[in-house]
């Protein structure tokens, strides 16, 4: 079980394997919790989203089409979680209970950075750094989290038109920085 990759685990979950489910939870839940908490400061909401996500994985594991179509199991987990998060935020907004503001990463200087440039690539690294926080948040939601314009608007709490404008401005700025 411990030597299997996440795709194999999902396939076993599809056959009703509880041990595989527990193993997948053990491997991915800290990562998912940290990632969700960075997008939503309300821990209660994050717990709710995580529970829904793993339940959806348990129920719908058979619908995971697998690495054969170019999707990784971890990416699939995140896609479900991101959608659930947006749904939960939407629900909150409808009930009139607005969630706490999402954590934005401010521009404070940090210590050891050099090693990270190997991961993102030096040009992209500096290009991202040049973007204003607003543009970066939009780009993060749409590129890194794979959300649509409408979902991004819910996640960031701004109108759809603003998301589109910011995405356009971010694209132009990135192109200029990379050329």
């Amino acid at each position, binding site marked *: 079980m411990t030597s299997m990759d996440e795709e194999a685990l999902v396939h076993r979950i599809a056959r009703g394997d509880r041990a595989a489910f527990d193993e997948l939870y053990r491997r991915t839940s800290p990562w998912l919790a940290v990632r969700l908490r960075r997008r939503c400061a309300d821990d209660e909401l994050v717990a709710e989203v995580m529970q829904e996500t793993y339940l959806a994985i348990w129920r719908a594991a058979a619908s995971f089409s697998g690495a054969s179509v170019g999707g990784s199991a971890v990416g699939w987990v995140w896609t479900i979680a991101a959608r659930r998060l947006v749904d939960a935020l939407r629900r909150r907004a409808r009930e009139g209970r607005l969630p706490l503001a999402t954590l934005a990463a401010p521009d404070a*200087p940090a210590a050891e950075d050099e090693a990270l440039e190997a991961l993102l690539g030096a040009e992209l690294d500096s290009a991202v750094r040049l973007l204003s926080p607003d543009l970066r948040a939009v780009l993060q939601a749409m590129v890194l989290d794979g959300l649509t314009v409408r979902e991004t608007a819910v996640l960031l709490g701004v109108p759809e038109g603003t998301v589109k404008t910011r995405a356009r401005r971010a694209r132009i700025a990135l192109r200029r920085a990379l050329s």
Partner: protein
Amino acid sequence: MNDEKHVPAAALRRYATGDPRSRADQVWAVEAHLELCARCRERLGEAVTFHSPETAALVAQVQTRLATEVIRSPQMPTYRMPRRVSRWAPPGFWARLVMTLLVLGAAIGLDLAGSSGLPPSVVLLVAPVAPLLGVAAVWSAGLDPLHELVVASPRAGLFLVLRRTLAVLAAVIPALAVAGWMTGASPATWLLPCLAFTAGALALGELIGLRWAAAALAIMWTVGVITPSVLTARAPWVLEPTSLPYWAGLIGVIAVALALRRDAYKELRSDSWFVR
């Protein structure tokens, strides 16, 4: 992957604790890497355990809640009809196909076993109405839980009905051909009546609903042709080769009638007797 391509421990710790001092581009790099790297996810788990008790508590809390929820929630079935087949086949297709094959098997058995008392081939007698069991399911609210959605879809109507009928025929006619080959009933004698009954059911279905139409035609054929032929032990004249031109003409007339009232299959009928 070598070591310098992994996330440094300090950056991972800052990411895990949600340290606001970490810069956006670093967070991006870490998140993009974590999605691809199982080892760094493992290391992040350790970082969470040691440096972020809130996250660790949250993970444990969700795990306890999940343990009870998972037992109660059913899983979706692993096996599903291949998409291409399910796009063509009518709902409840397999059960009806098996039933049709059983009827054909029984007819073959009668033909092969009791050739003394039954001169007309039972397979030949059954063949014209054989597809009706499947055809009845082609357009029915009672059998199709998604019927209202299907009716509302852009492709609803005669096109979809014909497509599903084609799927039924594609399964039933080869079976009939095999049965005919085993008992000596030539396809030339039953193919046209078979098509005429299928088209007739569709046309009549526009008036009284497909399941009623199929049932009515099958009962008519059983009472009017099968029973007398079995009782008198003579082949019915309607299945003689001389009557084939009439069958062809009938198909033509039915096709026109079908086309004239084709919009009947686009309506969502509220009278329950019609769609049941």
